[in-house]
């Protein structure tokens, strides 16, 4: 069954990828989607068996992969609660996104390719979450990176899409570099890459020193920091986050699947999976906390002022990932995973809802051009509201359980750690911001005046879009095939927290996780977070309500306030609008020098020195020699005979002069 879960998407990819063109779009869609549905159903069954039921964790081995000296790697599926949670998330969201895409992409000529990529991504992601060793995880890790690259650049005619795809790939390389180094270090320390062996060896390695860069460092800290570097890249954490907003160039279902629900959470999953290692490295955990908190805050601030509907959600994702890392950093691995789980539902919902809005608006993404859409697309409006409620943590929605728990855990940690204080403050503030920008999005999109352009420019753009809806330029509700996934996700966003919170982070913890996650003996975060002052528990709610009211005032009650505030603080506004100038900074620090250096090596080093002296120079000499040698072949018999005589004469002279030795 587990094998089927993982490999059905691969089958779908192969069918749609190899035969998509001859099958035609519709069969490709049906094949990949139905395979994914089967996979998702099986995943839920597995979840019930392993997570809720009593089925033991297992590790079916598929075969040997690499056997080289001490390095023995097998293809194996590690099935435990953590895996099945991820399986459920990945396959559910993926199958809903497949379904949704049938409607969303129905005008695109290369749908087989799209669905093939989606299935490929799903397969890679499943390989990642079922990995039983670091190398297999790395395989999935790179596989999702590849699929992400392909899907971001799906509309490769658009230069911006290509640029975004390249950017995502390159920034991820930075993280992967760290991840790979981390794997090497783990292998160097434990002599294995299999999880069981590593985890067994981890406690013994605590406090071990290694010598790098001329100084001694704690081995586990270095390892975990390197591994976390990979997670930072994949999960778009502070400093390596710049690719995620740009990745919105891809089709919206892709954003929902990859850049909200699944791939970006791979970093969170990885840290949770490697919790036995991270538990041995408190310094690294503190670092994780700080990075997570910083990201949560920083992304939220940017989200406040963005106007592109997808970018707002993208920064929101970034921010929520920060929350997850805060949870991991303070030792609440199950908290992080729980937030991952709930977040997958409501963030996918928001993205797909946004997709529905965009669909309705004929591929218009700028919120300033929307407004008053709630009457045109009421169902989407309802779903978006549910998503927003869940995201902001409205009581009893999914986000309420998971996000508030994280803030509480951060408070619990702050009692004995500076990083905890930092994390608590930033996450609380970010919660307010989250509420503000989420409601801002809803208000700008669904309330207020209709801004839909009915001028000639709009028509021109429309015609250019080759949209195919000749009958009506007004916003229209999406087809049923797109609304069903919205409804299902909406259901999840409302109830996932309520249903599962006890299992994930509450009293059912032990029975549910069954040692899939590891907590050190001194780690009592789950108990500590329940024993905080009651007032602290209300703080997130207050922040949420405050954000909501502020957004209500600024965008509904007194429209125009936003512009006044922005005009009053131009510096701050531009700073936020330009995303803290990170892109410009990186451009200045990395991109330009790299280009300069590249050009130097290319023109000067390679072109002039290596080519000039090497290939070109040598080949020119070779031609010279050839011309001379060929001239020796005169065709005259006596020349030939003479050459033979000279040869013999040379040889015997050599012996006479050199003497016989």
């Amino acid at each position, binding site marked *: 069954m587990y094998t089927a879960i993982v490999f059905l998407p691969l089958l779908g990819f192969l069918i749609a990828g190899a035969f998509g063109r001859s099958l035609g779009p519709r069969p490709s869609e049906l094949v990949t989607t139905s395979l994914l549905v089967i996979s998702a159903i099986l995943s839920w069954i597995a979840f019930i068996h392993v997570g809720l039921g009593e089925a033991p964790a297992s590790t079916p081995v598929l075969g040997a992969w690499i056997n080289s000296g001490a390095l023995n790697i097998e293809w194996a599926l590690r099935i435990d609660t953590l895996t099945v949670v991820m399986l459920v998330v990945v396959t559910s969201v993926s199958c809903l996104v497949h379904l949704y895409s049938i409607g969303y992409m129905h005008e695109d000529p290369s749908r087989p390719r799209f669905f093939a990529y989606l299935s490929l991504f799903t397969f890679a992601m499943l390989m990642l979450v079922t990995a039983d060793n670091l190398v297999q995880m790395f395989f999935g890790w790179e596989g999702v990176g590849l699929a992400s690259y392909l899907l971001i650049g799906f509309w490769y005619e658009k230069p911006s899409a290509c640029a975004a795809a390249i950017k995502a790939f390159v920034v991820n390389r930075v993280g992967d570099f760290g991840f790979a180094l981390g794997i090497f270090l783990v292998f160097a320390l434990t002599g294995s890459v299999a999880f069981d062996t590593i985890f067994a060896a981890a406690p013994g390695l605590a406090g071990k020193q290694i010598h790098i860069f001329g100084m001694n460092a704690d081995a586990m800290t270095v390892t975990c920091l390197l591994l976390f570097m990979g997670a930072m890249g994949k999960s778009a954490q502070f400093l390596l986050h710049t690719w995620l907003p740009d990745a919105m160039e891809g089709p919206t279902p892709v954003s929902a699947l990859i850049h909200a629900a699944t791939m970006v959470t791979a970093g969170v999953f990885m840290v949770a999976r490697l919790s036995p290692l991270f538990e041995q490295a408190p310094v690294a955990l503190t670092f994780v906390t700080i990075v997570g908190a910083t990201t949560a805050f920083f992304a939220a601030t940017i989200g406040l002022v963005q106007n592109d509907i997808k970018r707002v959600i993208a920064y929101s994702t970034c921010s929520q990932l920060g929350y997850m890392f805060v949870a991991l950093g303070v030792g609440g691995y199950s908290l992080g995973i729980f937030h991952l789980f709930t977040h997958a539902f409501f963030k996918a919902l928001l993205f797909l809802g946004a997709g529905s809005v965009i669909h309705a608006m004929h591929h218009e993404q700028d919120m300033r051009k929307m407004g008053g859409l709630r009457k045109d697309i009421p169902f989407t409006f309802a779903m978006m509201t549910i998503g927003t409620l869940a995201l902001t943590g409205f009581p009893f929605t999914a986000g309420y359980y998971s996000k508030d728990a994280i803030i509480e855990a951060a408070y619990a940690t702050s009692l004995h750690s500076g990083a905890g204080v930092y994390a608590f403050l930033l996450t609380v503030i970010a919660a307010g911001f989250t509420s503000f920008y989420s409601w801002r999005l809803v208000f700008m999109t669904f309330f207020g005046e209709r801004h839909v352009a009915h001028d000639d420019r709009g028509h021109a753009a429309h015609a250019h879009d080759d949209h195919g809806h000749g009958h009506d330029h007004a916003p229209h509700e999406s087809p049923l095939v797109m609304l069903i996934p919205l409804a299902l996700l909406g259901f999840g966003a409302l109830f996932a927290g309520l249903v599962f919170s006890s299992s994930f982070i509450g009293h059912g913890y032990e029975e549910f996780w069954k040692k899939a996650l590891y907590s050190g003996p001194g780690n009592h975060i789950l108990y500590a977070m329940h024993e905080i002052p009651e007032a602290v528990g209300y703080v997130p709610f207050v922040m949420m309500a405050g954000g909501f009211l502020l957004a209500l005032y600024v965008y509904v009650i007194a429209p125009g306030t936003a512009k006044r505030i922005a005009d009053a603080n131009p510096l701050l506004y531009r700073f936020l609008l330009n995303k803290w100038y990170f892109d410009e900074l990186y451009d200045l620090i990395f991109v330009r020098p790299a280009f300069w250096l590249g050009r130097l090596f290319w023109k000067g080093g390679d072109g002039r020195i290596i080519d000039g002296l090497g290939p070109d120079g040598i080949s020119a000499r070779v031609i010279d020699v050839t011309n001379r040698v060929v001239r020796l072949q005169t065709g005259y018999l*006596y020349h030939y005979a*003479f050459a033979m*005589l000279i040869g*013999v*004469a040379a040889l*015997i*002279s050599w012996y*006479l002069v050199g003497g016989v030795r």
Partner: protein
Amino acid sequence: MNVAAVFFYLFSAIMLASAFMVIAAKNPVHSVLFLILAFVNASGLFLLMGAEFLAMILVVVYVGAVAVLFLFVVMMLDVDFAELKQGFLQYLPLGSVIGIVVAIELLLVMVGFTQSDAALGAGASPIQANVSNTEALGLVLYTKYVYLFQASGLVLLTAMIGAIVLTLRHKPDVKRQVIADQNARTRADAIEIKKAPSRAGV
């Protein structure tokens, strides 16, 4: 110095000189004649060694057959050797330098040449006294040297096939002698008897 030694040096000297003249002579017919002279002297050397049979064979085959055939060929073909020797002077300096170097080196070898101990012992393999030269050859030709003898035969066969393949041409309009046809002719188809009227003129 006994008589044998005198003749040895005589034959050798004439042979070397005539061999040189073979390549030096301007007239190709002279060259062939010098070649014959060299063969004759070589057979003289064989005689000195007591190999009468080889000496005679040399005279009969090489002088009598091969060289004479050569002579015919050279006389029948109108080869302008002067033309072939063009460029000879052009390469003479370099050629002579190489030639002289090789010659000197070969002389040095001759000076420094030694024989192995085994060779000194096995230098002569005397023929038994009561066996004639021809008989001695016959004794080993099909026994000890059967392989080499057969191989030589194959070499000659190949040479013959080669000569035929490369030169024999079946020209359709050339009249050929067919012995069988000749023998099969009868008087009836060879001769036609016509009655010629007398005193009628033609």
